[in-house]
């Protein structure tokens, strides 16, 4: 059972390490549990990596994408990740779609390998859209049936689910307050420090010292999606990594960065990514779901929605 009290901010301890192309940041309210907490997080990260990494040929997801044998039995970890990804697709009406794996791979293959943000003349072909609705999960057999021609990419949701699982596990097993930040998407569990966890909001999660709003959060999850971090020029067009499932192309940049707070990191991550894809329709959708949100337009102007705090000069 998690406590609802708060912990002294001056006892916070943290560790940060490179992970999945960005960094992971683990913070706890009791310094003495930092080491065991890191062990817990590492174990969950390794499970998810073995199940869903597309950068490993031996991952279950890589084998699933290569498989053309119809239904395939999967591990409990991958099954949960697939369920979560489908839930994200459902709640965002398909704006976040795990079946755009092919598009992501094709776009990524055309990005400069050495410097993905450098200017270069590249062409990207439009890919056929596949629907997440075609996937079939069988809870009895714990199997998944992927129709031929569809490849899955759990990158967006898997990272968020990992943060949720890790934060919950650390809080339950150590009894302390914890914040797990995986590439800018973070989950909170246990007793928060007094006043909440102070979190900088920025375009890039690696930017610890640049300008940015700071907010405090005590529970749930917070995620930020941005078109500014991973991308490349194709002629005069900026291509980023957030693909619109309708077109198979990187989403048109109406909002360069969107931050969303929600009950879990998965929910926040899905909403933030969906908002980038939805463009002008995002504010109405976010407001209907009562997500506290902060949207930064391509020109830098800021829109806050729901209970997200109005920004005042410090």
């Amino acid at each position, binding site marked *: 059972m998690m406590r609802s009290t708060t912990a002294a901010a001056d006892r916070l301890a943290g560790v940060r390490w490179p992970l999945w192309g960005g960094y992971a940041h683990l913070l706890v309210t009791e310094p003495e549990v930092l080491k065991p907490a890191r062990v817990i997080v590492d174990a969950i990260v390794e499970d998810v990596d073995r199940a869903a990494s597309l950068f490993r040929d031996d991952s279950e997801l890589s084998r699933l994408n290569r498989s053309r044998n119809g239904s395939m039995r999967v591990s409990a970890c991958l099954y949960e990740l697939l369920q979560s990804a489908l839930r994200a697709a459902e709640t965002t009406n398909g704006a976040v779609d795990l079946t755009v794996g092919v598009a992501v791979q094709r776009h990524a293959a055309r990005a400069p390998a050495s410097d993905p943000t450098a200017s270069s003349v590249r062409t990207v072909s439009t890919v056929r859209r596949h629907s997440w609705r075609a996937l079939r999960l069988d809870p009895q057999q714990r199997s998944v049936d992927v129709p031929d021609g569809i490849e899955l990419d759990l990158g967006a949701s898997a990272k968020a689910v990992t943060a949720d699982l890790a934060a919950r596990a650390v809080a339950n097993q150590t009894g302390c307050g914890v914040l797990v930040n995986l590439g800018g998407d973070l989950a909170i569990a246990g007793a928060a420090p007094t006043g909440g966890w102070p979190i900088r909001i920025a375009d890039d999660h690696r930017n610890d010292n640049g300008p940015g709003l700071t907010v405090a959060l005590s529970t749930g999850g917070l995620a930020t999606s941005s078109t500014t971090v991973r991308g490349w020029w194709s002629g005069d067009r900026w291509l980023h990594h957030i693909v619109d499932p309708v077109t198979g192309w990187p989403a048109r940049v109406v909002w360069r960065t969107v931050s969303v707070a929600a009950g879990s*990191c998965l929910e926040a991550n899905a909403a933030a990514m969906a908002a980038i894809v939805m463009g002008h329709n995002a504010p109405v959708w976010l407001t209907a779901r009562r997500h506290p949100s902060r949207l930064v337009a391509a020109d830098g102007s800021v829109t806050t929605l729901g209970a997200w705090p109005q920004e005042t000069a410090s």
Partner: protein
Amino acid sequence: MKRANPRALVAAREEGLRRIRQLTRATLVGGLIGVGVLSAAVAHALPGHTAAAKPHTNRVKHNNPSAPRSAQQAPVQTYQPPVTTSGGS
């Protein structure tokens, strides 16, 4: 014409009332037994499950920690130094 004996008439009425009471009692007992037998038969044919009564709350139970939750706390602006950064990756 011979007149009926009033005592005999009263006795006949009492006997009739006694029979009616017996019949009513037998009908009630039979009915109760029938209802019991029928209930047992239906319960056996259509088994259900037992659920412990719980106090009603507005909290939603989630088996999956990543499942959407109805309640979400909003962030508040703070001037404390940040301990981590949320941003794109």
